């Protein structure tokens, strides 16, 4: 199964579930909900953190944090 950290720039996937309990609540509150589309918009010049598009706005998160979000790609 893929995580958000494994997406290519511009690739869209659907959030499936989370692997980190503490972080999942924060992510849920920020609108990263299971079933929601998530798009990897860009990667910082040094390779970390990542910028994603979620429920109509941009969110940044570190690679390690993106790895806790499992996604379904088509």
């Amino acid at each position, binding site marked *: 199964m893929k995580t958000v950290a494994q997406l290519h720039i511009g690739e869209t996937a659907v959030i499936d579930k989370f692997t980190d309990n503490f972080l999942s*609540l*924060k992510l849920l*509150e920020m*609108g990263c909900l299971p079933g929601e589309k998530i798009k990897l918009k860009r990667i910082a*010049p040094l390779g970390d*953190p990542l910028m994603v598009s979620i429920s109509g706005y941009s*969110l940044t*998160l570190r690679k390690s944090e993106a790895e806790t979000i499992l996604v379904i790609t088509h």
Partner: protein
Amino acid sequence: MKIALAGNPNSGKTTIFNLLTGLNQKVANFPGVTVDKKIGKCLLANNMEHPPFGRTEVDIIDLPGAYSLNPKTIDEQITHQIICDTKNADYPDLTVIVADATNLKRNLFFATQIIDLGKPCVLVLNMMDEVENQKIEINGSALSEMLGIAVVPVSARKNTGIENLKKILSSNISPPTKSITRELTNSTTNSQPEETIARYKKISEIIKQCVQQPTEPVAETFTNKLDNIFTHKFFGFIVFLAILFLIFQCVFTFAAYPMKFIEWAFVQCSVWLSSVLPTGILSDLIVNGIVAGLSGIVVFVPQIAFLFAFIAILEDTGYMARVSFMFDKLMRKFGLNGRSVIPLISGAACAIPAIMATRTIGNWKERMITILVIPLMSCSARIPVYTLLISMVVPDDKLFGIFNEQGLVLMALYVIGFVAAIGSAMVFKYLLKSKERSFFVMEMPVYRSPRWASVGLIIYEKVKVFLFEAGKIIIAVSIILWALSSFGPNSPTPDPSPKGRGISTQPSSLISSPSGRSGGASLENSYAGIIGKSIEPAIAPLGFDWKIGIALITSFAAREVFVGTMATIYSVENPDNSISIREKMINEINPKTGEKLYSRAVGFSLMLFYAFALQCMSTIAIVYRETKHWKWAALQFVYMSALAYCASFLVYQIMK
């Protein structure tokens, strides 16, 4: 009546607060933490149904931005405490929820949590101008119906809808008629994540009925285009460097004019005072203690104002979030945060505004480390010390025919400061313990034009905080230093000549010694002189004599005082005003060796000492204010002094 403003970060809460209260606001701290507590007063027209007619004054409190009532940051914790705890001193009678209408879904999450508390509240849909630009349609009355509270569309940037908001605030507002929590408890939700998902599901239903959104938001594409450049692998750094260059040009070049004027004005003031006041201890205290101390504070104001103007603009436009995004990986290696970049670089101008700017770092540990290492960055107060010493011990020659040696040494001192800052940060990364988890799940705001009124307010607030909070401590230390350099065991009264001795916080001219300093001999016999002589054995291994010892003590007021103190000491020994201080110091002979006292070894040892030592009482005062504990100021003073002593010791022992 108390009204609280609550909402997500970047929802424009503070702009609405500024529009409601204007300049009738004051900034304090929430007890125990350094989160700004902004309280203001607002006049509301009285409810027409309840005479007497007229206006009532209400207190408005701007709560720190939060994403939910399950607190994860200090900001969220404070907001939670105030709106959930009925016994809290700031518990509001009415909560105004501010939501960014262009991103209603996420904003409604926090909003519905507040609505569910069942207390009177109003929802403000902010940024309606952008909603129109993005062709989003929001049915306000349907939203009001579904949420069970009044909904007020507002555009804080365009200043529309504020009067309507005031009118609604002055009417009787009843508690909300709906509650999502009540609806949720009927179904089977037991864990917080499940509740969150269920709440978002409800919000999606509400949005579906009240909001019509085009597929690709307009502001997003504009922001995207800018980000293609601003966060580009190559151009991103070029833009960043260009912005830095601009900031430094302003802070060093433009701020220098008002600073020179302030120094000039204070010199005029003290000259005038000493001519008017009768000679005696009191006038000496006023001129050399209080006025000198005051000038040492006020002279920083232009730099603080310029730096905060830039920081406010970078913050307001959304560029600061990009800087964090670009540098987070690099800074994390050193126990810092992407948000530490700007404060660290600002430290090269002055540590005081730089330390004040660390408030944007949310994580406690990362903020403390940033504060601890900022004073190692070479600030502008070191420049007079460096230039004097370099001109004495480094020949004005060209290295390889092109590089000016003096310039190279100055640059090396800057590099050493930066390396020391980064290195110390790495050490503190392992020493400081924190239970708080560092995360970078952060909203990336869209680019917006800065709001000049709020930039002005930020400058006003920061200058005020510096003048009155840090100023108190600086004045106190100035008076102590004045007493130490004015009194001695053998001279119970200070020299009656007001320009007699003592420290001057004005950096004296490097070229000629200030005339009229006559009574400096008493400096040697003052407590400062005695301390200078008594610490001589301790500083002798660094190559310093007791005269440098006095300068080390007096320049605790500010580093550049070193130059002034040296001027005082040497003009006393050799009153010949035709020889410059620099030449007098160069000619100084070490009585033990018979050679020149200011050898290369002593010069470099002294420069390194000033590069590392925390010779700045304003920094200590501001660190105390920002951390709320003397222990941080003490730790910083001790580690930097130790670093300075060791570095000077090594350099002197190797080079001599």
